[in-house]
């Protein structure tokens, strides 16, 4: 991107996408510096950040591309880091990390991407599936196989199962807003067919996210230490199934470093679960 050329080299990282990050998400941008007043200093860093991140930061003073920053920062300013590092009086401003995590851990710069959202809504009236199937486009109905009409729309690419009781399940959306919008579109289709459809009790039932930690993982080690949460049976499934208790999320962890998180009702649970598992996975990184 040519806007990179105008910025100083160390701030180029702000414009470049980071891993799995989409620029659309306002809150969780990995390129958060500490805000204007708290520019990271090499000397001050040791009391709050790990040595590794300090080394990374020192390395990136001269090179372009930022090290992954803590992204729970409240400030949204993207002020470029100064080239020369002015020495701030270190004891006065404690460099408390802005993340709620323990000070010894650094947060990953990786944000899980949502892949699928399943939601349900009640249309509030009994439906005649045969007329819906005959008159609506992109609808299939095979009562011998399954007792619902399967309808698909293209705009948020989703599939809906519409039951004769008036309840509907909408799957395939990539974000909560898209899921709600798609459900509304299906309700509209049903309404246009002549049924008095309403939009009651829209609820997201399940959210699936995935991400990549970018290093291979020793699953055998993980299953030995976290026996009560993990289940790893290579004969049955090649991934390790980790059932986290604190946000009740199931994670599928693979040798390649890809992680799938599912079972969440809200987006924050997925993020929290990934933040919980990331330090554990780092401990089981394959060294070769």
């Amino acid at each position, binding site marked *: 991107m040519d806007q990179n050329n105008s910025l100083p080299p160390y701030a180029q990282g702000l414009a470049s996408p980071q891993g799995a990050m989409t620029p659309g998400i306002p809150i969780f941008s990995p390129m958060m510096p500490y805000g204007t007043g708290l520019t990271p200093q090499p000397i001050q860093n040791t009391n709050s950040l790990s040595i590794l991140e300090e080394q990374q930061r020192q390395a990136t003073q001269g090179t372009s591309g930022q090290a992954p920053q803590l992204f729970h920062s409240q400030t949204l300013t993207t002020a470029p880091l100064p080239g020369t590092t002015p020495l701030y009086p270190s004891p006065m401003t404690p460099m408390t990390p802005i993340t709620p995590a323990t000070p010894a851990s650094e947060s990953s710069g990786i944000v899980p991407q949502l892949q699928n959202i399943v939601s349900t809504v009640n249309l509030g009236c009994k439906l005649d599936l045969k007329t819906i199937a005959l008159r609506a486009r992109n609808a299939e109905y095979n009562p011998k196989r399954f007792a619902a009409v399967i309808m698909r729309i293209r705009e948020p690419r989703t599939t809906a199962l519409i039951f004769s009781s008036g309840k509907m399940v909408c799957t395939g959306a990539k974000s909560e807003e898209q899921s709600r919008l798609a459900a509304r579109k299906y309700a509209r289709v049903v309404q246009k067919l002549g049924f008095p459809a309403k939009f009651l009790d829209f609820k997201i039932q399940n959210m699936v996210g995935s991400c990549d930690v970018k290093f291979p993982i020793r699953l*055998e080690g993980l299953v030995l230490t976290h026996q009560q949460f993990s289940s790893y049976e290579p*004969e*049955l499934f090649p991934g390790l199934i980790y059932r986290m208790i604190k946000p009740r999320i199931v994670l599928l962890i693979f040798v390649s470093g890809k992680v799938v998180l599912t079972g969440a009702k809200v987006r924050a649970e997925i993020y929290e679960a990934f933040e919980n598992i990331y330090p554990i996975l780092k401990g089981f990184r394959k060294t070769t």
Partner: protein
Amino acid sequence: MASTSRLDALPRVTCPNHPDAILVEDYRAGDMICPECGLVVGDRVIDVGSEWRTFSNDKATKDPSRVGDSQNPLLSDGDLSTMIGKGTGAASFDEFGNSKYQNRRTMSSSDRAMMNAFKEITTMADRINLPRNIDRTNNLFKQVYEQKSLKGRANDAIASACLYIACRQEGVPRTFKEICAVSRISKKEIGRCFKLILKALETSVDLITTGDFMSRFCSNLCLPKQVQMAATHIARKAVELDLVPGRSPISVAAAAIYMASQASAEKRTQKEIGDIAGVADVTIRQSYRLIYPRAPDLFPTDFKFDTPVDKLPQL
């Protein structure tokens, strides 16, 4: 167990000289003896074993055992299997010609399903020659059955899963496919029950390794000991060097056996190995391709090559 609880209610016999001594039971004489002074305290103890004089005659119809099977207190509660024999005289038949006294009242109705499952477990274990795991399997099944958390599942599925877990716990794991071969339950269902049982009993099992299956697969393929040892070494090295990340240990073991057998005089085809191991031959091919580049490093140092390493088949 009903019998012991009734004994507890009765006044316990103690040696008059040593009231604290625990009496030793002598089954042969039917006595209870004080270990301190040797006094015979209680006599005429009922022997709950099977009838002493059961011979395996040809006259199998007339069962000479008059007290029934030996009591199995560990597994079924209170198996008091007194049975009414077939009537012989005229008095035992009523006017229609049926026997007056029906035989085999429900002897242990609460555990009929459990006894059925034990029979099934014995049959399955017998098919794959596992006589020693039966006790452990029966115990596991009894624990699961009493917990009732898996009550909805087919008993055969739970029995197969218990057999699988028992083999794992004894250190001689069998693959799911091997258990499938002797059971009518699908691998998927056995896998589900396996996970549920581990959760219900709050136990865990060790991870399977490639070496667990070497001796069985190699002897089924009639491979000599050097080839088996070479294959074990190859598989272990392959896992250590992380040449096969994410592959099932069974597939890696099968590929190692293929490589070792192809380097020796006793060559086996991928199909043969696949049949024995329960692995598809394309899977063996895939894993073999991963270990083939490092073949010289994987063989043990004292291996006698019939086909040298560079002439190994490349797939």
